[in-house]
């Protein structure tokens, strides 16, 4: 048996994006898990009984509505709503008098068109693919909903407009060269409408069709081969959208705490958001691929909540975004200095990045100082080789 050195050990490819994706999933799953309480066993028992009952229910002959929608096919409903599944795990609840067609279902792109009526989309977790719903208003305006995740409704309204309502997660709606980003509880309506303020808000009663489709009904829960069950495809928000979202004109955020329509002229008075809120928003923006927005939120957190414990992490994340994505080495350096001033758990990475940045900026003397400081503090650190090769 030979001794394997550090450079001999098999190592995976670990790009920052991969680590971010891993952390995002860990965070989401961790936050979903219930804390352990003494009453968990009775609760688990009840859940097991309910699951058994559901299993028995699903083993009865499937309803005629149980359908797997194949690529290139469409489904058209008459007087009854219908639930269909996609092979990739998502589900669509098609309202009565509606038509939905499935376009491409390549591994990285799923395109669905809503030709008429209304449908609720429950998009399965699949970080590597984009899920799009395309439709057109009566006036011919094209609307595309890109799924960041995860459950939302698209409807053709009586007045010829198209509306989008998000139950959970995040979607992006593109229409007429504008882009709106909707978070849970938010809604959007196309220009075809004459009722700019009629959209649903979290406090509004649910849309009648949505109310009808929200809960399980006989027609919806019928089993379908290849259809992800409630424990698979319909839980929690997904990070489905990973494509670039920067560079769209007319971008706007619409969420439950904000004006629900892009047509609304109301601008709420500015209040300073809490650090926790900013942190979560920055993370969500980062997951959605909105790098500039994420950086802005991190910068705001650092500026407005400098004493908060999250400020150190935010400064480090800000530096990473500026360095890796925004081509802003000077800004990244400022953020790193701020992160290092707070100590923090990322000191090793921050010191290494600082040396790299100074090397990139051609500030050789400072680079050498930063390099030597890193090597002195982390002589056996993971960045030793990379940092040691800087500014010779």
């Amino acid at each position, binding site marked *: 048996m030979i001794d394997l050195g550090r450079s001999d050990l098999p190592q995976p490819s670990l790009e920052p994006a991969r680590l971010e994706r891993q*952390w995002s999933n860990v965070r989401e799953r961790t936050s979903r898990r219930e804390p352990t309480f003494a009453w968990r066993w009775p609760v688990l028992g009840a859940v097991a009984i309910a699951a058994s009952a559901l299993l028995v229910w699903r083993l009865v002959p499937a309803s005629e509505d149980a359908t797997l929608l194949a690529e290139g096919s469409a489904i058209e409903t008459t007087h009854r709503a219908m639930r269909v599944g996609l092979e990739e795990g998502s589900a669509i609840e098609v309202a009565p008098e509606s038509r939905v067609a499935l376009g491409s279902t390549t591994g990285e792109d799923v395109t669905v068109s809503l030709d008429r009526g209304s449908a609720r989309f429950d998009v399965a977790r699949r970080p590597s693919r984009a899920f799009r719903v395309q439709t057109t208003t009566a006036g011919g305006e094209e609307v595309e909903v890109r799924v960041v995740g995860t459950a939302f409704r698209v409807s053709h309204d009586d007045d010829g407009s198209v509306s989008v309502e998000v139950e959970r997660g995040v979607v992006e709606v593109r229409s007429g060269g504008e882009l709106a980003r909707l978070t849970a509880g938010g809604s959007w309506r196309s220009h075809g409408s004459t009722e700019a303020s009629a959209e649903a808000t979290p406090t509004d009663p649910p849309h009648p069709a949505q109310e009808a489709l929200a809960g399980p009904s006989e027609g919806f829960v019928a089993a379908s081969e290849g259809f992800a069950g409630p424990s698979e495809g319909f839980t929690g928000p997904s990070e489905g959208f990973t494509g670039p979202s920067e560079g769209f004109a007319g971008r706007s955020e619409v969420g439950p705490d904000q004006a629900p329509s892009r047509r609304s002229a109301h601008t709420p008075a500015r209040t300073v958001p809490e650090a926790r809120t900013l942190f979560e928003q920055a993370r969500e923006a980062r997951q959605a691929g909105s790098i500039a927005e994420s950086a802005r939120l991190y910068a705001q957190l650092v500026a407005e909540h400098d004493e908060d414990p999250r400020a150190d992490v935010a400064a480090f994340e800000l530096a990473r975004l500026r360095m890796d994505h925004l081509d802003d080495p000077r800004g990244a350096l400022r953020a790193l200095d701020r992160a290092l001033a707070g100590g923090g758990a990322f000191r090793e990475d921050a010191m290494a990045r600082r040396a790299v940045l100074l090397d990139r900026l051609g500030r050789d003397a400072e680079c050498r100082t930063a390099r030597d400081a890193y090597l002195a503090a982390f002589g056996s650190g993971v960045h030793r080789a990379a940092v040691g090769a800087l500014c010779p």
Partner: protein
Amino acid sequence: MTAVSSTLEASIKASHEALVRHITLLWDALLVLPWSTMAKPVTEPRATSEGGAQVVPFPGAGPSDAQLVEAARERQSWALEALFRRHARFVNGLAFRLMPRDGELDDLVQDSFVEAFASLERLADPSAFKGWLGSIVVRTAHKRIRRRRLMERVGLRRREPIDLDAVVPSTSSPEAALELRRVYAVLESMGAEERIALVLRRVEGLELAEIAERMSLSLATVKRRLVAAEAILTSSRAEEGGAP
């Protein structure tokens, strides 16, 4: 009298240095831990010239694992993140060497961290977080390998060979590369426990007792698993005409 005085001075000096060390640690923790984790805020420490000691504001690489675990137990999300980021490379490396198919890596890493974060209350020694986390990675890999084998046996999954070119790093010495190729070429033909024991022994370089701890097996069982794994390895070498 002089001797007593000098002893006292030494004692005072030692106490003073200990106090300064404590303040330093508290100050470091204060900078990174949220206020809610402190019983009460600590006032800003002042440098002192007595005894020549200085309070260094940022002495190390942030809070210790034990501090982070304590904060994480209170569901402080920043502490969970800090633990993830600090140990992500270690977990990814270990997971990759145990299950070197890239498509399986993310799931294994994520499952391991989720399990660890959900079980923090069961970690007796918070400072031993890294080793404990490694054990969770090993156990999680074991479960996944067994599940995959079962699926292969019932025909729900096809057995695929490990891509040796992707596993062996280009920086490996020729001897190490050959050793790695031999080990990973036969892994798929082994049982889950033999496979993991062999990787921990041959690749990770762990001692038998460490392997037993990571795998939650007795030392005798680990030895048996390694004997079986080595037999397969030796047989493979004999087939290719190489030296044992």
